[in-house]
């Protein structure tokens, strides 16, 4: 696919905008025009000062190093490497960290027995009273039976 065909492909997928096809003369004129921007440069004194400022900043960084900045740059540089194994290793390290965090820091369930201090309902009260009444009757019956069992004198 040559450049013109590729360019037409781009024209089709871009929002409609009238763009004139570029001929060789226009193309060269445009390149000459753009290349004028290479002259937009400051004078030599600027670059001497640039170097001196760089030295000043280096001295300042040496006195006040930013650990966070250094670490973040190193991490970004490591991931900027297009080697896919870096991502695999990074994901593995993240999973391992998450696993150990769960093991050590997940809150453990409390197994202490808890007494039932909830108030009893009316039905439970009635049942409890009936049970006591039954026991009281049984006890009375036993006592009366013992009285009857005493031998009577003739």
């Amino acid at each position: 696919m040559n450049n013109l065909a590729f360019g037409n492909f781009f024209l089709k997928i871009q929002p409609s905008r009238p763009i004139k096809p570029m001929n060789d003369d226009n193309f060269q004129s445009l390149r000459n025009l753009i290349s004028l921007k290479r002259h937009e440069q400051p004078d030599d004194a600027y670059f001497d000062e640039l170097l001196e400022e760089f030295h000043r900043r280096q001295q300042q960084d040496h006195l006040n190093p930013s650990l966070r900045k250094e670490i973040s740059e190193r991490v970004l540089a490591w991931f900027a490497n297009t080697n896919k194994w870096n991502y695999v290793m990074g994901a593995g390290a993240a999973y391992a960290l998450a696993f150990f965090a769960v093991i050590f820091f997940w809150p453990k369930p409390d197994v202490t027995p808890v007494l039932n201090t909830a108030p009893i309902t009316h039905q439970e009260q009635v049942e409890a009273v009936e049970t006591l009444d039954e026991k009281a009757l049984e006890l009375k019956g036993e006592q009366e039976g013992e009285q009857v069992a005493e031998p009577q004198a003739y």
Partner: protein
Amino acid sequence: MAKKPKSVDPDADLVKRAQGGETRAFDELIMKYSRKLYGLVYNMTSNKEDTHDLLQDIFAKAYRSLGRFRGNSMFYTWIYSIAVNMTLNFLKKRKRRAGFSFDDMDSGIHNDPGFIDQGHHSNPRRQSNINELQKKLNEAMQTLSEQHRTVVTMFDIQGMPHAEIGQILGVSEGTVRSRLYYAHQQLQGYLEEFLSPTHSPDQ
């Protein structure tokens, strides 16, 4: 088929000395490439102050990362890649500023052979037209996306070959060519008045 011999890095000695802790060697590297890097960053940001700050950050990062440079590419390609990536990251974060601070810039456009006419150089109207052209070029560049502006800066302004641009940006040569084609189409529309054969800075 014989393997293409790996080209020798002209900065290999300076890099080795800088990695050994010799600061003067690193200073020489900075001075050698600072103009090129300035041109790259300025033409992508069109802002003098941003360019200045970015250059300092680029040099600082290159200095910190120099120990990890293994010589798999030329030093120039390596530091250029750092500059491109940092500038692109900056542009993504930056909010669009009004105006371009090139008023204090020493423009050498009037000394370019492509721009010199045989008439009077001290023509105020001519100077005014040059300033207008400079402003228009900056505006035209800002209409491009960051990706397209990068390839135009590297190819049209700094004269780098397609292969080298592709290596720095991590894309194929075909991608570089297609981006350039589209960018030129966009710029042609914006700079049409300056491309007219009847247009002259002295009008």
